[in-house]
């Protein structure tokens, strides 16, 4: 160590381009050309398409026209349904965020700017394909026409909450919609999705699984387990990474984005990897469809990196102005997913500004009405809405004695306190 004529080592600590107050300049950003990436056949071996991890699949160009081989050529009703689901997701987020701010519940998380990554994916999957979401995929439920009043009941932990007030707001579970119970522990759903897909394959079923996690969450060991098992058993699963550039206050560099793309993780395992413009609903749809076709035909798993931007704070507990420039979202070079799809359908002549404005109004009203409906069942802030008995249920299928005793003790306790 000493006496050797060697340079001192130094530790590299990543640093984002922009911090609060910085002028944001994206002129370095090399905009991938819409339609430029070729679409390989779905049976192509991963080794033959490694380059897909370093480019970006984009379908919609600046004028909102669909370009190239990845254009999924969707029917007008599908396009409009996706647009509507995305707009509803945003309207829902706006209202429920406000509800939390008004003190009606404890917590909320928006997915603003990322709606395409769940809504378009949901449309490219079959309804009975199983989704293993993280906490920012409310768009899946909305795209699957799950009643938003049910979602609000959960957010309010009220009498009608099917989860009996046990979960933090937005940690939905909707088995009927093939939407897995959301965990507060990051990335745990990843190996679970792989296991579900392995089970489906072992049964000769035709249903596939899809999972979502954030780019920050890829650092968890669960990500590695999922990738390894998916590769080894060629599981019929789609593993989505939503790279929205931020993980609370940490930029994507702390998950490894300085060194390579997240799609490239796939290469390490010999898995197919795609990288798409996550703000381009058609690209998301097309990539998901490609991966689903692959999985369904026993060609194995696909990792999809959705390149997008978290336009709002991490959650209601967060203040993003403390760590990033507010300008970033505004200037995001890949635009807004709703605006881009809207432009596309208007360009196709199947939509117009008036209908859009009317739809926005209708959706806002719909959310308002659902909220009112849900509030009939109570809000968290008004105190406990759940039956106390239920607290001890579902720990096990059959309640064991010690829980029965504790339940009794609790009820006596409440009686003693005159509650």
């Amino acid at each position, binding site marked *: 160590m000493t006496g050797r004529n060697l340079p001192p080592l130094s530790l590299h600590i990543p640093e984002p381009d922009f911090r609060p107050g910085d002028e944001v300049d994206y002129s370095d950003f090399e905009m991938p050309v819409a339609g430029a990436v070729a679409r390989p056949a779905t049976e192509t071996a991963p080794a033959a398409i490694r380059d897909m991890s370093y480019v970006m699949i984009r379908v919609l160009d600046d004028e909102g026209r669909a370009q190239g081989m990845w254009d999924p050529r969707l029917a007008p009703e599908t396009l409009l349904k996706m647009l509507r689901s995305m707009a509803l997701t945003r309207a829902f987020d706006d209202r429920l965020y406000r509800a939390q701010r008004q003190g009606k519940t404890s917590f909320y998380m928006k997915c603003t700017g990322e709606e395409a990554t769940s809504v378009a994916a949901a449309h490219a999957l079959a309804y009975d394909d199983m989704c293993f979401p993280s906490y920012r995929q409310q768009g899946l439920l909305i795209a699957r026409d799950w009643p938003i009043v049910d979602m609000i009941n959960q957010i309010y932990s009220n009498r009608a909450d099917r*989860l009996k007030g046990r979960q933090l707001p937005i940690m939905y579970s909707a088995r009927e919609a093939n939407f897995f*119970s959301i965990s507060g522990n990051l990335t745990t759903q990843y190996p*679970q999705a792989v*296991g579900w897909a392995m089970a489906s394959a072992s049964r000769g079923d035709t249903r596939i*699984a899809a999972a979502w996690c954030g780019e920050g969450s890829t650092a968890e060991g669960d990500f590695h387990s999922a990738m390894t098992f998916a590769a080894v058993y060629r599981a019929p699963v789609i593993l989505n990474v939503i790279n929205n550039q931020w993980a609370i206050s940490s930029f994507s560099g702390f998950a490894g984005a300085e060194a390579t793309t997240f799609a490239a993780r796939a290469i390490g395992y010999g898995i197919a990897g795609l990288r798409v413009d996550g703000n381009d609903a058609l690209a998301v749809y097309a990539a998901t469809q490609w991966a689903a076709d692959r999985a369904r035909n026993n060609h194995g798993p696909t990792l999809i990196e959705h390149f997008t931007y978290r336009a709002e704070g991490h959650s209601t507990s967060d203040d993003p102005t403390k760590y990033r420039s507010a300008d970033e979202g505004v200037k995001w070079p890949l635009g807004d997913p709703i605006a881009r799809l809207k432009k596309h359908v208007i360009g196709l002549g199947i939509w117009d500004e008036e209908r859009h404005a009317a739809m926005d109004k209708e959706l806002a009203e719909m959310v308002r009405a659902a909220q009112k409906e849900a509030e009939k069942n109570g809000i968290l802030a008004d105190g406990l809405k759940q039956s106390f008995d239920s607290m001890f249920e*579902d*720990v*096990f299928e059959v309640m064991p004695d010690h829980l029965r005793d504790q339940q009794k003790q609790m009820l006596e306790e409440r009686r003693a306190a005159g509650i």
Partner: protein
Amino acid sequence: MSIATESAGETRTMNMIQAINSALDVAMGRDDATVVLGEDVGFFGGVFKATEGLQKKYGKTRVFDTPISENGIIGVAVGMATYGLRPIPEIQFADYIYPGLDQLVSEAARLRYRSAGEFTAPITVRTPFGGGIFGGQTHSQSPEALFAHVSGLKTVIPSNPYDAKGLLIAAIEDNDPVIFFEPKRIYNGPFDGHYDRPVSPWSRFAESAVPDGYYTVPLGKAKLVREGDDVTILAYGTMVHVARGVIDETGIDAELIDLRTLVPLDVETIVASVRKTGRCVVVHEATRTGGFGAELSALVQEHCFHSLEAPVERVTGWDTPYPHSLEWAYFPGPVRLTEALKRVMQD
């Protein structure tokens, strides 16, 4: 013991490995949703041979090797369970379960509750545990207390071939996640703690008479191994045999209870016994502080305070990592137990 009405078949002599293998065989034969997975469990049949022959019989998609990732093993098992399968993952040694703990504790154990019953994780994690084989720090641990503290998880520990089979089938059929600890020291024969004497094979003991077919031993029911009047010994796994040996040697009229399941615990049987004897010694291999013995001791004094004539004693491993060469100084063997019994009896 409850033997199901269905014929349990002929009875054979089995050691614990054979009984566990038979349980897996029976469970897999009855329900094609059962799946066995883990490191080396497939072609090889497991490093302790518990899964021998199963891959050949049930095929590679129902019995298969996995990557060396305890996290992945339990994680995919949970996913398979939510699909509708009934996975039986093996963790090669309990000492290696920590990388997979999150999937067990935060996911499998909490899933029914958090989804209000929409999703469940009926998995049975089998894992050899305990010391006495000169396995050193990482092939000897007894981490059962960590699991017993987790709500939503059942913790089962058999002490003989008959129970091992019956409890394992019950665990597999149970709709909740179960961790099934196998005391590896007694796979081939009960061990009374006299490490310097040859071990008798299971065939010399009544509990090695195991029906070939289906039967269950219900979870949550302790077994009264021996009735006695002077003191109650609470034990599980290998320590049941150490206790039995000490009773035989000392002639102490102890009532010996094999807990079999830590969660849910058969408090009734424990309390009835201690109320009768007025004294209690709790035994386990795990380190003392925060071990399951603490829970037992606490429960006994809560329920039997006015019957107790002496403090509940804990006979346990020491609060050190499991040492290799000093294994027998660490292990709570006959001497430590006898001394404790003497103390409790004289009080």
